[in-house]
């Protein structure tokens, strides 16, 4: 029995060291204020349940123009954050900042209206969609950037108005949607090629698309108008926000078929699956609310009204405890970041930001 005491001490030590994140108190996320050319570092204190702006960083090219920071991500090692600047003359750009100093490190040009992005832990490359929100109705691209040298390696042609760039848990595939062709598109992160095009609006009977589909000849009358795709952390499932049909779609990537189709609040826009795979959190842009869906039960377990209109992005802490929602607001109204406790399914705090809070990404918990 004497062996139990040292074993207990050892285990306690390892538990304290290894489960540090489970006891996190401070949570940090970056959010872009698109109409104010600012990025805020949001700090949430889990003990007081209060969020504050820890730092505000001015971004963009022209101090007297609105350059439009739209998408944001943090490198897997947490050392840098990246923001896409939507507007330029005419092209947007990617800007890289240090998380230690929040100072600009370097930039590289992208395509038209670059938006959401993420870095694959497998390839180390950054995949950013060129949303081309206001351009001609023609295929745009995903730019692939080597983030250390900030070199734009290639542009992969994709659908019309691509959005919602997220990397699967394996790191081998990037997923995004083509808003105006109703497609979910998968990119092989290593071969840098489109590996699957999955038509969402024509697959109500389970028919899948084909990667060689000639999308240029499609009639562009989107039904679903998908705006975001997020892979499940452990299952071969992709969740898609169907902004045009007010639906949450579940796509099985083994079978390449839509396996669930949930009716949601108005105009679902961004979504994210909790790292523990239990919930998907969906912003309802059209009604200023956030829906929390239990994926096991297949139902919305909470709809939380946001503090203002035009709900935008969502990012979730790695411990699956908190969701951080960005809300744009309207006109001169400030934007906001709203913190939802995913254990109590309640909004616990709101922090006002610059106008049109949009791209949001979790940085760290400690």
């Amino acid at each position, binding site marked *: *029995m004497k062996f139990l005491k040292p074993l207990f001490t050892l285990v306690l030590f*390892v538990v304290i060291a290894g489960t540090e994140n489970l006891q996190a108190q401070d949570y940090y996320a970056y959010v872009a204020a698109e109409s104010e050319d600012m990025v805020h570092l949001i700090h949430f204190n889990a003990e007081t349940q209060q969020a504050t702006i820890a730092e505000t960083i001015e971004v963009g090219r022209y101090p007297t123009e609105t350059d439009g920071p739209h998408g944001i991500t943090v490198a897997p090692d947490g050392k840098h954050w990246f923001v896409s600047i939507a507007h330029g003359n005419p092209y947007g750009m990617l800007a890289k900042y240090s998380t230690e100093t929040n100072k600009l490190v370097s930039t590289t040009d992208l395509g038209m209206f670059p938006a959401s992005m993420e870095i694959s832990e497998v390839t180390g490359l950054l995949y950013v969609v060129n949303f081309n929100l206001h351009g001609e109705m023609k295929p745009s691209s995903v730019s692939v950037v080597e983030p250390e040298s900030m070199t734009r390696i290639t542009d992969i042609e994709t659908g019309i108005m691509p959005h919602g760039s997220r990397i699967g848990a394996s790191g081998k595939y990037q997923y995004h949607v083509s808003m105006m062709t109703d497609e979910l598109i998968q990119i092989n992160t290593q071969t840098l090629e489109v590996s699957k095009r999955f038509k969402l609006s024509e697959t109500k009977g389970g028919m899948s698309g084909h990667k060689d589909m000639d999308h240029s000849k499609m009639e562009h009358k989107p039904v679903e108008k998908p705006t975001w795709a997020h892979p499940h952390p452990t299952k071969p499932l992709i969740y898609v926000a169907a902004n045009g049909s007010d639906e949450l779609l579940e796509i099985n990537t083994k079978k390449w078929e839509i396996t669930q189709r949930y009716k949601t609040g108005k105009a679902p826009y961004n979504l994210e699956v909790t790292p523990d795979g239990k919930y998907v959190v969906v912003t309802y842009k059209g009604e200023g609310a956030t829906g929390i869906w239990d994926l096991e039960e297949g139902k919305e377990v909470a709809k939380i009204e946001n503090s203002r209109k035009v709900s935008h992005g969502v990012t979730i802490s790695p411990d699956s405890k908190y969701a951080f929602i960005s809300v744009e607001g309207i006109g001169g109204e400030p934007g906001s970041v709203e913190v939802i406790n995913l254990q109590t399914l309640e909004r616990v705090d709101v922090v006002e930001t610059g*106008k049109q809070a949009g791209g949001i990404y979790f940085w760290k918990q400690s």
Partner: protein
Amino acid sequence: MGKAVKFLLIIFVIGSYQVSAQDTTGEESQVQIVVENDNLELNVGDEAVINAKVVDSEGTTLADTLIFFSRNRRALSVTRDGHIKALKPGTYNVFIFKTQQNGNPRLRSQATVNVIYPPLDRIAFNTTPEQLYEGTSIQLEARVYDKLDFHREDLEVDNITSSNPEVAEVDKFGKLRAKSPGSFTITALIEDVTTEWSSEVIANPVTSVDLSVNSDVVRTGDVINITAVPKDQNGNVVQDAPVTYSFTAQPDDDRGPAAPAQIEQDGRFVANKSGLYTIMAKNASTISETTVRVNPRNVSQKIEVVGHGEVTDVPTSDLWVWEGVDGKDYAVTGTHVGRGEAFFWDVSDPENMVTIDTVTVDARVVNDVKVSEDGRIAVISREGASNRKNGLVILDVTDPANVKILSRFDDGLTGGVHNVFIYEDHVYAINNGRRYDIINIEDPENPYRVSKFELDTPGHSVHDVWIEDGVAYSSNWTDGVVAVDVGSNMSGEMQGAGGSPENPKKLGSFTYPSGWNHAAFPFKSQSTDDFYVIAGDETFPDGIPAGWIHFFKLNSWEEAEEVARYEVPEAGTHNLWVKDDVLYVAYYQGGLRIVDISGELMGNLYDQGREIAKFLPKAGEGRSPNSPMAWGPQPYKDLIFVADMNSGLWALKLQPVEETASAE
């Protein structure tokens, strides 16, 4: 007890998971990328493959694939699998990237590729005259070209010699001086390439140079036109005898004045500082000179602040001032990164300007505001709409105290309208910074697009458009100012091309190297009849406004010469206006600048005492107190209105000139 141990072991396993993951990562660092043909040497046009592989610590080649890329794709094209093609000479790095594969970590390496310059082919001189007059000189420039006809700008020919230095010599700067009659050959040599040309120096018949100036008493900034006629001993004009111009200066302020004047070899002289200047015209040893007096320009006037419509809680953007249908004076101002507002002002009593109505639209930026010539219709631009549809809004401003929204037009304008212009029942709307759309508003409640104008240059972009006499002058950053006939009524060399709003036709364009073109304004000089297009910059090096005003003198739509600038060194330009040969320019942190642009223009007007007045608009409170950030000016009747981002709307007046020196 057994349960306790089991519990502890489970927790141990969970807790130690991260530790073991880090250890695995450490072991994988033994894998590396080996480049087998680093430091490749290629000729332009050559193709090759970078041979690189991944090996483990024992040298065993692994199956991991690599990605190759270059930061210089226009000089060295690289496919993802390492095929390269040399396009331009130079030394380049090819990055080699390995993703995380087969349990091996990401790796990064690089290979150097040296694209060899092609052999040199020839040297070309800028001029090779067959004869030179004794005592004259010319400036030689030798360019080197390689076998692929690339101009080797990195090479300078410093070995240029004369076969007969007694006849003609060349100094180390390439100046060739014809010393005495005789023949000579000039030889240029670089590496193993040489070229030569032969010429002769002949006796110089010039014995006199008749020198005259169009005026010998002028003001700073006035351009003197010099005429110099070389003649022989019989008084005959020697047509081909070169003349060079120079001057000496006795500035009134002789305590170290900088650059008091400049002279061009086409015979134009302008002084920045007052004083006596002796202008010389020289052919060989024959020199004539004349002295001119340059007086201070003395155009400065005091500026009176007549009124201030304070806006300090939201940045003010553009303005427009007009006479309403009731005969009173009104203004409208936009807002930048605000609440989507346009403010309407009664400025009939400029000492007490008051807002009389506010129109709020779904937008964060109402960047531009314009009012039709009849004072009935206004158009405001929208950016940052919550539904991202943006576009523009057409207003009835017949009663500016009760402005009514007549229509919203966002069809195809969702990218945002940054600037607008109203001209003859059409709105010209900058669309998403890519083109301008032309929208018929004869029925303002039912606007419709009639055409659009867009450049076809790679990466083109447009910022603003201004229309006068049926010609649209757009400012297009790197593509410069573009003139388009949308119903021109101009004549002579500047006549139009039969364009219309439904069928806009390009007339010409004028670029400049910086690519900062942000604004354009045409004007015909009342004092000279010369036709100019003024191009304004916008740029923010290190986040601070900079840039200047460029003056292009046009002889035709195809022939534009940049002749002058107005550059305030410590500030950056924004919007501008010209009225009666006076330039009004908002110079951001440098405030409003009012500049005399009468007469021929040459040099930097800032240095020439042409500045009539300046005004730094600022308010003591608000979001940016005491920080001038002038956005745009508008001369209106006997007043000057200025919109300032940080302080709002200002009404100013130039006080009468109390003393002005004349040229007489």
